[in-house]
């Protein structure tokens, strides 16, 4: 039985919508994340997929404590991270790091690469000056770059190399969890494979846990052990990746997978084209969020929200019709 590293329980994040310049009365809320629960096990890669507005990026920001939670709790190694402050907060930050999508804006343009990678260490007073330098060199080599690169500025590196630097920085404090938010989608196709292999190797070596946010279904399947599918602020299905792709139970997951581009022109797939657009998170449909576009719609879907239930071992679905 794997150990649970992170547990989210009924997490909600609502962004208030206000009217008026001075009084700023709240007239509504964007329900970006509206009650999700999931666990991430130590050493695994948990993928979160979904389309624009589903709340996956907000979820990652909540875990990184870049946004404050509206309600619910997130436990990390048993501790409630939504209530942390001071040294406890610093400790948490040391255990959870991130790599973002855009390699060009992820590195401070006016700092040398060595300084960028060393910053988490320096800020946490973890090592003395000489040790910091050695650690930076070690990290650069770990990500496949030359250690004398520490003297250069980010703009002297290519996109793929910059992403490696971002990975090196994320590893500086030996975190337990790294949030990867679209780590390869801004990179060239041939470079993506390099970076994905790097992430895989590092996980093999260090046992670090990944939370992977991505929209490319092939990338998510390749990298993840378990996957959660989100739609309009809710988790609609969670399963191991093989199981999810071979046996998707939720209609949205089925539509998503059928819409994925084929690997071969002869790849015959039942094409499910969803009608309409994703509704606004200001005013999500009542009951099951997906029901207006669902091809398996039943009347009760508009009335009550389906709970996330474990249909088979390790396979959770939130749907009235399965």
């Amino acid at each position, binding site marked *: 039985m794997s150990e649970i590293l992170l547990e989210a329980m009924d997490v909600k994040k609502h962004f208030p919508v206000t009217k008026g310049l001075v009084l700023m009365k709240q007239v509504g809320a964007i329900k970006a994340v509206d009650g999700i629960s999931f666990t991430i096990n130590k050493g695994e890669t948990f993928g979160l997929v979904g*389309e*624009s507005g589903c709340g996956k990026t907000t979820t990652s920001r909540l875990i990184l404590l870049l946004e404050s939670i509206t309600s619910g709790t997130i436990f990390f190694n048993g501790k409630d991270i939504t209530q942390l402050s001071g040294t406890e907060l610093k400790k948490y930050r040391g255990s959870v790091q991130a790599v973002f999508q855009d390699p060009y804006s992820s590195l401070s343009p006016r700092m040398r690469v060595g300084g960028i990678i060393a910053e988490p260490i320096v800020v946490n007073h973890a090592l003395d000056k000489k040790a910091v330098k050695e650690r930076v060199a070690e990290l650069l080599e770990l990500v496949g770059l030359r250690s004398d690169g520490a003297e250069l500025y980010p703009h002297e590196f*290519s996109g*793929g190399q910059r992403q490696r630097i971002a990975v090196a920085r994320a590893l500086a404090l030996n975190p337990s969890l790294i949030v990867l938010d679209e780590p390869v989608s801004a990179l*060239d*196709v*041939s*470079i*993506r*494979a*390099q970076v*994905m*292999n790097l992430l*895989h*190797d590092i996980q093999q070596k260090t046992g670090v846990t990944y939370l992977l946010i991505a*929209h490319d*279904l*092939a*990338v998510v*399947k*390749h*990298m993840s052990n378990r996957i959660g599918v989100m739609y309009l602020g809710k988790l609609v299905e969670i399963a191991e*990746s*093989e199981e999810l*792709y071979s046996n998707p139970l939720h209609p949205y997951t089925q*539509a*998503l997978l*059928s*819409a*994925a*581009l*084929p*690997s*071969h*022109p*002869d*790849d015959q797939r039942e*094409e499910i*084209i*969803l009608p309409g*657009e*994703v509704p606004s998170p200001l005013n999500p449909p009542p009951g099951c969020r997906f029901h207006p576009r669902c091809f398996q719609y039943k009347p009760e879907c508009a009335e009550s929200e389906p709970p996330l239930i474990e249909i088979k071992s390790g396979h959770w679905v939130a749907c009235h019709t399965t």
Partner: protein
Amino acid sequence: MTDETLLEVKDLKTYFFTRRGTVKAVDGVSFQLKKGETLGLVGESGCGKSVTCFSVIRLVDKPAGRTVGGQVIFNGEDLLTKSEKEIQQIRGKHISMILQDPMMSLNPLFTVGNQVAEPVKIHQKLDKRMVWEKVKEMLSLVNIPSPEVRMKEYPHQMSGGMRQRIVGAMALSCQPQLLIADEPTTALDVTIQAQFLRLLKDIQQQSNLSMIVVTHDFGIVARVCDRVAVMYAGKIVETAETRDLFNNPTHPYTIALMNSLPKMGAKVDRLYTIEGQPPELQNLPPGCNFAPRCPEAMEICRQEYPPQSMVTEEHYMNCWLAKGKE
């Protein structure tokens, strides 16, 4: 060149003259496009696929960029020899283009209806009422519900998928013969992408439209393209019918690229990678551009650029390996 050929590009060369040297963005590109056919131009960033398209419709960034050689024969006439005024008659009317980011392609200050009407007003002599009829017709064509209402809206009031369809409506409003789509779905969600590609295919069947689709995604090629040209560092390295390319890729770059993609099927631990990085286009090595990264590079590859060889009917590529087999 048969009656069926709409576009023939011969040995097209577009260079950018910069302080750091001459960037050979497009260096001798040739291909043909039949009526009703979809050609995919595949490659990574910097390979020249977008510049090729801009060269075809003469929108290369002056003064740094210039088409320095070759021919672009459209409906029997070389577009490169035409005057600016003549080309303006062709753009929007006979050849249209849609780009990657719909938000960049639309003017935030004008209504959507206004923007779709613009090409119609420029190229067609219709009275006011007929123009708006046309706009409504185009919006329905791209599956925009309630077009009379939506055409009064502004781009920011619409979702990404809808905006891209508006861009499509603009591009198709004058019934062009050729539509160039530069990464048309990269900015769209997965399910919206499927909608949009299906739409393009439907429209193409209705009107015998030819398309050039520029992409880095082999999935799009598999879904919508009849034929494919793989580009690397300014040159086409392999051309084939889509099925043929997927079944029998022969150029080492094509093979390496396809192998490095994660697939939805069998799970592998590590992906095949291509060593190194794409070359700097102002500092190209002699011989084959791919030689520095090619796992099968031979001595001659570093000295001379390989001529075109035929793999099978309609399947060509440039590689010394094939020459050896012949």
